């Protein structure tokens, strides 16, 4: 039974939605059965693909940049008081700022195209990666490092072959949080800077009072988020199967 738990919950939610839609009979709450054809049409006409691709491209670009810079920075922060001294205040300052609030400024500087959106995604997802990377690297048992040092491992080797793998479980929790934040920022940036993408689709449909379409795109976004998170979760478990079990933290949105 427990195996089917998620399916049962999903079915119950859909049923609730269907019941609410049928009871309220308003245009702004179409039933799932009414949204379904709209969803089908989105994919059948191929309309959605261009926006999906545009959104995913920005998310991926921001994410790759964030991993490339955030992982080394986080690890260095965890291991060097000097680096931490510079980065910690920045982190403390920017972490609580709602990144979407920066979008207008970035738009002024970087234009209304991909660049401003990639930048805002990058800024948003880098922070949790740096933060968790730092936590992971700082918590590495010193005796692992000593053992390697005695074997002749140099400082760079220690960072790469000891600290990085040892921090991986914590680091990947940060990446999971970053994926959720990345999706949020991806959608909100596309809502604010209307050009294309899934966030644009949602608001555009809404403005034109095409509520069924609005709901259909929201379903696409929700499924996308679920698939990305579930895929990453599988990857994370494969990469850290060796780690002693710990309570998994639920990712929190921003």
């Amino acid at each position, binding site marked *: 039974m427990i195996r089917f738990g998620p399916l049962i919950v999903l079915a119950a939610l859909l049923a609730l939605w269907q019941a609410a839609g049928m009871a309220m009979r308003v245009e702004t709450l179409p039933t799932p059965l009414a949204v379904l054809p709209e969803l089908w049409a989105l994919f059948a006409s191929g309309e959605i693909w261009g926006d999906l691709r545009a959104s995913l491209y920005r998310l991926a670009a921001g994410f790759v940049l964030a991993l490339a810079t955030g992982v080394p920075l986080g690890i260095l922060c965890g291991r060097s008081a000097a680096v931490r001294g510079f980065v910690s205040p920045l982190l403390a300052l920017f972490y609580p700022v709602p990144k979407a609030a920066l979008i207008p400024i970035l738009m002024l500087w970087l234009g209304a195209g991909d660049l401003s959106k990639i930048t805002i995604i990058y800024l948003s997802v880098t922070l949790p990666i740096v933060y968790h990377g730092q936590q992971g690297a700082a918590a590495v*048992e010193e005796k692992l490092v*000593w*053992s*390697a040092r*005695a074997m*002749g491992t140099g400082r760079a*080797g220690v960072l790469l072959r000891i600290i990085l793998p040892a921090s*991986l479980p914590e680091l990947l929790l940060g990446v999971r949080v970053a994926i959720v934040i990345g999706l949020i920022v991806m959608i909100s940036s596309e809502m604010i800077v209307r050009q294309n993408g899934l966030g644009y689709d949602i608001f555009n449909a809404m403005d034109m009072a095409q509520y069924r379409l609005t709901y259909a795109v929201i379903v696409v976004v929700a499924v996308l988020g679920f698939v990305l998170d579930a895929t990453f979760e599988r990857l994370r478990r494969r990469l850290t199967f*060796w*780690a002693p079990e710990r309570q998994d933290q639920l990712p929190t949105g921003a």
Partner: protein
Amino acid sequence: MIRLDRVSKTYTRAGGGEPVRALSEISADIADGAFVTIVGPSGCGKSTLLYIVGGFVPASGGAVLVEGKPIAGPGPDRGPVFQEFALFPWKTVRQNIRFGLAEQNVPRAEADRRVDELLDLVHLRQYAALYPKELSGGMKQRVAIARTLAYRPRTLLMDEPFGALDAHTRAKLQDELLQIWERERKTVLFITHGVDEAVYLSDRILVMSAAPGAIKADIAVDLPRPRRREELLRHPRYQELVIEIGRMMDTTA
């Protein structure tokens, strides 16, 4: 030979205030091939002393000399074994043992041979593909010992290596360590607070007192080798030493 020349360690407290003197001018010569154990009450700084010899923690004063040369940090001539095992959890037993050989650029085929040799030595051949979290404490410490022996350090620095194990496993590993030592005759600097363990294993015992840590007595263990547990436990000299050192520990605590 390893020479401790007036080694001191002082900690400055994080909150300010008087610095704490952990070790006070400790001098000793550790002969090649000797099994030397440092015993002392907890907090006497015996582990700190070992970390200084390993080059992991800097001394505040004095020097550690290996073959007459002051050490500059850790080195493969001094291999540590820690109470916490400190295995690399993302590596299998085999990969753990192999790590130091790779770091020392030992050719692949030779490294593989050496790892097999060590897996046999510590009776872990059939567990080679397991990860540390799948092993018992005793097996973990066997892997740690094999990992350190792999790169052939001249000296083993053992920091309460059997402290986290149950009595039965501890006795077994003590016997295995003695067998290995009889064969390889490495210098061993061993830390413990177990007096009977110290007497059973060592050629020489340094008894430390606390606050600040200092060597209070230097005792030669004149018991025959190779040692067999049952014989030794009945040996009057063994009992004498255990009682004598135990009494010293009581008065230094």
